[in-house]
């Protein structure tokens, strides 16, 4: 008898139809590292994640959302602040990282302290300098919200909010923030709008000779941790990767960040010490600090003429992906929007 009732319940669920979303990326790219098995890959889960990403309800005093530090138009990072500001204006110890193409990361944060994209949000949520709350409190708040009960119901056929579902929905949103339509990408694919000028071509060559060993194409990042010769800021004493592994050989190593949309993601480096790309290039050509953990790739001085520096800069601008920066699907979810 109970078995028959079971079958009816099953049929009930079969009737619920959610719209599937697809994770798209160019076929010549490497395979994503992230395995999507826990996500439902539905439009409903994506929209729930989008609401959560833009909702200050996720902070203790309802003032800060993920988007406060990760703005779409600037490649989902915090501009004009070297160290990201959080709740009550408290200043964190690091510059926010732009978030894009996250499915290819094996670890997260400048020091790789977070081991999986699904648990990444726990860091800002519970950091005193950022959102200063806990996942348990957010679960409680969302369970009291009619809007979220209905969004969770749509996404998971169950209105009950749990910590896991919040984390998965946020993942479903951020993992879709993929950038692969810059002028550089069109150049590689031989597409309309992808014709490089002579200067851009020279810039690409300079890049490949000096930078691509770490900022690897096509993602312009890598999952390695390297010391790129920045001197230690004695007010922060941030030793990067060593703080996670506790190994002296990891001292001053940081994640190699992506350079996609770099034109808009200033300030630069883990502590936001450089305001402009000119300063960054000057760092690599004349300010690299030698220390026991300095990367092999930077042992020998990079020598560039003034013109070559300009060419490199011009090339870096081809990594800007307007379609990504202005994609409405990734923007603030207005209540009137139904999808």
């Amino acid at each position, binding site marked *: 008898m*109970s*078995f028959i009732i*079971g079958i009816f*319940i*099953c049929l009930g*669920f*079969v009737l*619920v*139809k*959610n719209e*599937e979303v*697809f*994770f*798209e*990326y*160019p*076929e010549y790219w490497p395979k*994503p590292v992230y395995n*999507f*098995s*826990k*996500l*439902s*890959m*539905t439009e409903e*889960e994506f929209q729930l994640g989008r609401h959560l990403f833009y909702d200050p309800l996720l902070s203790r005093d309802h003032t800060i959302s993920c988007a406060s530090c990760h703005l779409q138009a600037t490649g989902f990072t915090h501009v004009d602040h070297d160290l990201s500001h959080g709740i009550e204006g408290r200043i964190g110890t690091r510059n926010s990282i732009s978030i894009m193409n996250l499915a290819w990361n094996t670890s997260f*944060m400048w020091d790789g*302290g*977070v*081991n*999986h*994209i*699904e*648990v990444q949000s*726990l*860091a800002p*949520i*519970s*950091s005193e300098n950022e959102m200063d709350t*806990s*996942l*348990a409190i*957010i*679960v409680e708040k969302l369970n009291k919200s009619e809007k979220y009960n209905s969004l969770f119901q749509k*996404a*998971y*056929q169950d209105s009950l909010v*749990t*910590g*896991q579902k*919040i*984390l*998965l929905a946020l*993942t479903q949103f951020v993992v879709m923030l993929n950038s*692969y339509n810059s002028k550089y990408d069109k150049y590689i*694919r031989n*597409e309309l709008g992808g014709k490089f000028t002579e200067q851009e071509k020279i810039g690409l060559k300079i890049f490949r000779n000096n930078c691509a060993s770490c900022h690897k194409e096509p993602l312009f990042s890598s999952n390695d941790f390297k010391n790129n010769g920045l001197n230690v800021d004695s007010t922060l004493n941030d030793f990067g990767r060593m703080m*996670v*592994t*506790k190994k002296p050989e990891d001292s001053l190593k940081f994640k190699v960040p992506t350079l996609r949309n770099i034109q808009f993601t200033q300030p630069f480096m883990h502590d936001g010490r450089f305001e402009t790309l000119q300063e960054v290039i000057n760092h690599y050509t004349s300010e690299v600090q030698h220390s026991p953990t300095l990367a092999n790739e930077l042992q020998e001085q990079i020598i560039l003429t003034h013109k070559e520096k300009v060419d490199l800069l011009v090339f870096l601008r081809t990594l800007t992906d307007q379609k990504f920066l202005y994609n409405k699907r990734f923007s603030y979810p207005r209540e009137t929007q139904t999808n």
Partner: protein
Amino acid sequence: MLKSKTIKTITSKKIKLVTLVLLLANSILFAQGNHLKIEINPFFKTKVLKKDSWYVSKNNDSLQFSKIKFYLTDFKILTKEGKTKQLPNSDFLVSIFNVESRSILLENISYKTGDQLLFNIGVNEKMNTSGALSGSLDPANGMYWSWQSGYINFKIEGKSPSCSTRKNKFQFHIGGYKKPFAATRFKSVTITNAINNVLIIDFDIAILFDSIDISNLNQVMIPGKEAIEIADILPNLFSLNE
């Protein structure tokens, strides 16, 4: 032209269907299967352990406990013949001052007296690197670190005049899954009779506090050497009461 690959995944409705079928299958099996109930009884030496009561250790430290929470996971039966039977999804969060959480029900297990019950104190490496999990492993349970991913296997909080910390508090958050600082520990007990399918396990917190100097070691909040020192003692806190 941009060609794109798509990642095919099961849609949520299919997942629901699968779980339901599994649930139904489970309930049918359960009727024929066996089960084992584990009851954990907390002590400080011979005294029953209660929240916010005072106890004195062998080192003459007066101690009060406000929170003791830990994971027991990955239950297995090792038969006398040497066969191991894994119990899927046997992950439990025990909170010593919450009576219900101190009783653990293992369903669908068959065992004989003389077999061994094996489990982990804490969470294994795989679960530490599997992203957002549910149920007792949901990070909303407050047993998860944020800036450095990983579960807190064991939380002990309280106060003692021997600690010259703020409000005399001691806090032990023991965890870590990466070698050499992996803090998950293994425990085995032999099932001797298990009357009415119940196994009583005594948990004696005094064993830990008799063997550490809490005037020096009173705040452990990250994986590392100190966490390992404490993790090594934890299995001794559990013993079979028969």
